[in-house]
Each structure stands twice: as C-alpha cells, then as structure tokens.
C-alpha cells in the first residue's frame, strides 16, 4: 500500500530528524532542591548577561541529580548535578569510571534550623542533646519539659526531612549523633561491644511512635505541617526561614543564633557545604557551560555581597580557591 509506505517513511524521517536535533544550546542542571533556588538565581542572571540561553535547572533531590549525571556521557544526559551532600567515595569512583573526570565545585554553606511557629513560644534555645533525648527511638518523653524542665511543657512533635533528602544526613550526623555522644549513649553502645559504624547507626534512629514525622516533600510541606500542628517543630534551611519570618522563628542551637554570619564563622553547629558536580567532558560540547560555572563562583554572584548571600547562602571564605579550580576545568 503506497499510503502506508508514505506514512511509515514520514514517521521514520521525523524520528530521525528529532534525534539529529538533540544537540542542545543550553546547560542542563538537576539535583538538590536546596541548591535549586541559588542555581535558578544564577541561571537567570547568566541568561541576562551573556549571549547564551538561560540554563535550565531541575530539582529532584541531591541523590537523584548525582545519579542522573553519572548515568553516562551524551547530550541527553545532564551536565551538572546540584548537591547538598558530598558524594561518597564509591560513588565518586564509579561515576568517574562511567563519565570521565568530574569536578566538585563548592558554592557556599547552608544552615539548618529548628523552627517553630511564632505563637509556640519558649523554644529559644535547644541543644543537640535535648533534641536527641526527645527524638531518639529510645525516648519515651511525651513533652519537651520531660526532656529538660527549662523547655516549655509542649507535646513533642517534630517534622524532620525524609531519608531521600541530603538534609537528613546532616541532621543525623550533626544533631542526633552529637546529642547521642553528649548524653553518653554512644559510649554505652561502644562499651556494649558495638563497632563504631553500627553504634552511629543506632544513634541515628528516630522514634516511630508519631512524635517524629518524616517529610519527603519540600520545606513548604513542613511549613504546612506546622500550620496543622502549631506545637510542632520543623527542620528548615536558612533561606526558607528567612523567607517566612512572619510565620516561624528559629531556636538557637548551643546558644548560637542561625545566621549567615554565625554559619560562616563556624559557630553555628548545624551547617553543611553546598556544591555542584560538573561533568568535565561536557564542557567543550555545551556552549556556555564553562562561562556558567565561572559566573556561579565569581565574587559578583557567590561573594558575601552577591545575590546568593542576600538570599541566604553563606558564602565560602575560600571562594578564590574554588575560582582557581573552576578556571582549570577543561
């Protein structure tokens, strides 16, 4: 049938031409939803100031972004993965094996805050030990006052990031484990004959009786949960807190108020580096990629007076080293 032949050839031609057109002219980024706002601010300014089209930035989570970047080389894979946690050594090796050289570019630091609604007064100061005692799976406390009489007599209800978030790792290491050590549970576990790793794992465990709720969505979901449970305490990134100071306030941790200054100086204990991973082999193929990376870490953007710091990123005191590193990418 000539008609069918014609139809088939048209279909195959269109598919072929679509594949031929895969060559793209903008940088493609995905990953951490914590880095997403910063990356979108840079992408927007990049599109305005350069002759390259605005890069596209997707969310999806740190792990998912790194996985997509390490999938392979080729223009239908992403170029840059935003990440709020560091790549583990095994993943780093495996990734380099598949896609060639990868560069880790640190853009600054992010603080993690324990915040609650303004009307839920009294949570001005918390310590990792208190949080551990309240949220550990060994805890039977039902009120914050049970944990420490200095705290308000309010039922324990915490909304913490789910396990797919990079933030969870920081919460486990810098809050739960730190608290576990202060309280002495960690030492007890070691004394009982546990290895280091299993003992740490034991400290990470949060209670499952409903007093601690995992939030798999974004901070907006945590905020909505606080609306429904005004006595609840939520874990938020610093920039999210800064955008919502009309509804929530953050507790000091170990007596230090979370702010860009205290995080930069290292006084505020719960912070983590933010970074993105660059697939070096794409730099020569995607127009504007190198320029984007350099623009991202320039003083104008990532410096202490740049738009990123204004939005809540804690700028990296060693930014010039990162700039040199980026310069060398080929």
């Amino acid at each position, binding site marked *: 049938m000539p008609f069918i032949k014609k139809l088939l050839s048209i279909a195959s031609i269109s*598919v072929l031409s*679509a*594949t031929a*057109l*895969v060559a*793209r002219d*903008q940088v*493609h980024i*995905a990953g951490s*939803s914590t880095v*997403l*706002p910063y*990356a*979108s*601010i840079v*992408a*927007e*300014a990049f*599109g*305005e*100031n350069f*002759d390259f*089209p*605005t890069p*596209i*930035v*997707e*969310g*999806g989570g740190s792990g998912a972004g790194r996985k997509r970047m390490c999938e392979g080389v*080729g*223009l*239908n894979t*992403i170029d840059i993965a935003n990440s709020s946690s560091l790549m583990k050594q095994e993943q780093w090796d495996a990734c380099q094996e598949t896609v060639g050289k990868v560069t880790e570019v640190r853009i600054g630091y992010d603080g993690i805050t324990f915040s609650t609604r303004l009307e839920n007064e009294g949570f001005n100061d918390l310590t990792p030990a208190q949080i551990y005692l309240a949220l550990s799976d060994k805890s039977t406390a039902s009120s914050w006052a049970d944990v420490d009489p200095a705290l308000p007599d309010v039922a324990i209800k915490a909304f913490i990031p789910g396990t797919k978030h990079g933030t969870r790792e920081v919460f486990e290491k810098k809050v739960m484990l730190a608290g576990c050590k202060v309280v002495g549970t960690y030492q007890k576990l070691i004394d009982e004959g546990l290895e280091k790793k299993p003992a740490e794992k034991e400290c990470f465990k949060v209670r499952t009786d409903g007093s601690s709720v995992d939030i798999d*969505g*974004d*901070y*907006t979901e945590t905020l909505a949960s606080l609306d429904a449970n005004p006595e609840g305490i939520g874990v938020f990134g610093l*920039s*999210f807190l*800064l*955008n*919502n*100071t*009309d509804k929530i*306030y953050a507790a000091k941790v170990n007596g230090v108020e979370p702010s860009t200054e205290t995080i930069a100086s290292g006084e505020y204990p719960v912070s983590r580096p933010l970074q993105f991973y660059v697939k070096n082999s794409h730099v020569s193929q995607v127009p504007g990629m190198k320029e984007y990376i350099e623009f991202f870490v320039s003083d*104008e953007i990532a410096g202490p007076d740049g*738009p990123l710091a*204004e*939005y809540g990123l804690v700028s990296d005191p060693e930014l010039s080293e990162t700039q040199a590193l980026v310069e060398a990418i080929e």
Partner: protein
Amino acid sequence: MTETSHTNSLFNVSSKTKNRNAAERRFRIYGILAISIGLLMLLVLASTIILRGTSAFQQTFITLDVDLLESKLDKKGNRNVDDIKKVSTFGYSPILLNAMKKVLEKHEISTSLKKKALGGIISKSAPSQIRDFVLEDVNRIGQTVEFKFLVNGWIDGYIKGRYSRESVANSKFASAEQFDLIDQLLEVGVVEKKFNFDFIFGADASDQRPEAAGIGVAMVGSFYLMLVVLVLSLPLGVAASIYLEEFAKQNIFTDIIEVTISNLAAVPSIVFGILGLAVFINYMHLPQSTPIVGGLVLTLMTLPTIIISTRASLKSVPPSIRDAALGLGASKMQTVFHHVLPLAAPGILTGTIIGMAQALGESAPLLLIGMIGYVATNMPTTISEGLLSPNSAMPAQIYEWAKRADPAFIERAWGGIIILLIFLLTMNTMAVILRRRFERRW
C-alpha cells in the same frame, strides 16, 4: 366494615403506602443533599481559587525617570556594543538608585533608608529591563527615559495585604520603613497597582524575584504538548478504532486487545512518565525536558481514552446505514469513510477534546521527563524550537511555584490555576457544544 378495607381506599392511605411514599421522599432528600454537598464543595473550591488567585493578576509598579549615564554604561564613550555588553546587570543598579533618589527629591519625601534597602524596593528584574533597552540601541545612552518597573515581591505583598509592619519585624528582606516610604509614594502616584500582563505572557523567574514570574512560556509549552498529542493520537486512535470496530473479526485476539485498551485507560499517569523516561529518553535518546517527549508520553496516556470514545460513537451509528450503503454497492471502506465516520465525527471530536483536557491538566508524568523546575525561561520563536527546546507546562509550572519558599509564589500558583481552569472550562464547553449541535439521535 372491617378496618382493613378502610385503609385500602384511595382516600385513606395505608401504612404500607405511607412508608413507601416516605421512603421516596427520603430518597429525594438524600439526592438533593448529595447535590448540594457537591455544589457547596464546588463553591468553596471556586471561591478559594478566585480569592487567592486573582491578586496574581495585579502587580505593583513604580514609575521612574532613569538617566542612562554615559559614565556608568559606556566609560569609553565610543558606543561600542561589545564594550557596553561588558557592563553586567549589577552595573546598572547605581543608575536605578539615582533614579529612586531623584523621584524622592522631586516629591520632597525624606527617608532614613540605606542604599540597599532603598534599591530593594525595586524588583531585581529592573536592571536587566534597562540593560535590554540600552543594548537595543546604544545611542540611547545619555538620555533620560521613563521606565515602569515592578516593585519587589515583599513590598507588593504589603500592598496586597500579605504582610504588615508587624509581620516583617524579623525579616531580612523587608522593613516597616520601606512600607512607610511606599505609602508616601502611593499617595503621590509614583507607585501604583495595575493589571500585570506579564503574569499571563511572561517567563518564569528565579526564587529571588517572584514578582517577575509569569506563566506565558509554560502556556506555550502546554500548547506544543497538545499539538503533539493531537497530531499523533487523533489519527492513530481513529484508525485503530475503525479497524477494531468495522473490520476486525471478533476473536480472542481482538478481545485481548479490547481488555488491554480498557486497562491502559485506567493506568495511573505516573507510569506513563516512567515509560517515557525509559523509552523516549534513555533508549531513543530524544532530548530531555522537551515538549516533544512530553507530548509523546501524554499521547500514550490519551490514546486509550480516544479509542474507547471513538469506538463508542462508531457503535452508536445504526447498522441500517451500513446495510444501506453496502446494499447500494459501496465497498466496506467507502461505507466507513463516506457514511459511518461522518456520522460518528461529533462523538469522536468530543472524546478527543475530553482526552486532551485530561492531558492538559497532567503534571505527574512531566515530573519524570524533566519538565518541572526552573525550566520555562526562553520563549520559543519557531515551531521546531517549540518542540525541541526545554520547556515546562502549565500544571508543572503551578506545581513548581507551590514548592518555592517565598509565599509570593503561592499566590502565583493560585493565579496559574485560574488560567489553567479557564482553558479546561473552554475545552469542556467546546466538547458539550459540539455534542449538542452535531450529535444525531436515532
């Protein structure tokens, strides 16, 4: 006379009849209750959407006379475009600040605000607005031009009643002094709230400038998605259903196909997204985040709906018409294309429109093929760019906005919902009108 004969008379209703009538009355009340609960829900939903969303269509603007100073924009003074391009948007901020100070002087308003807070009243999109204007024609440097800029989202939030002086007490982004100044500027007419066309036609903006974000590019993305869906699923769906309905023999094989199609229609849309990622992106290497991939995925989703409704409307054409045509010597194909298909066309179109309306509101499969994020930034200029350059779609854009930190984006999400609903309403109304006007009953 016994009592029973009394109760059976037409005038004296028996207790059984009474019960029966009461049951009917009760059932009617249940029905009315069900409808009124439904209506109430609809009312609550519609009024919430309208109450929260309409404010997105208005935005606060500030009018400033900007001196395009040569000393800042073209230090060499040779009007060389490449040199002028080197001045980034950050270099344009001082000009804006000057313009702001000038307007305050003109209206004799004094303020204690520092440089940063004063400049912060204007949206961060303003410098690029001036820069684009200058680069369009470099001879404009040296002139004084009147610009209308967006006002920062926080200040706009104050004018719309989202923030008050108390609620920004702890805020790093806005202050009560800024609100005081805005009140004065409102009075003299430098600042005004106006309808914002850029919300409907503009591109997405970064987290730092919610006031500049628009749904326009995502709308174009949705349009291309629908184009792909229409071009692929209508011919495929109609061909498949004509063959199945008119030509294929009824056997186990066609029965299996039928069951499969009905099952496919009930498959959750996210599954099609995973399929699209695996087949179109990972295997066929089509570019990510593009409307062509999104359209292909949505086609898979819409096809079963179209096939089912097309088959139903083909079935509803009475056999006598086929018999008459065949009896007059028409071939099977002539019968179908000359008689059956035209009579079934209104039903097919209705089914297609409803299927497309469903696809238009779909965001879950788009999540997996990368159409959600800071994506809808460049307005495509050609059809091939529209199909092959990364874009978002309306529901995906709404979802993206609802996730962002600044509450100003939530307002825009509600506004986006209004626009999406208008599209869906139009499409569904069109389907109803088509059915009413052209449908034949036998």
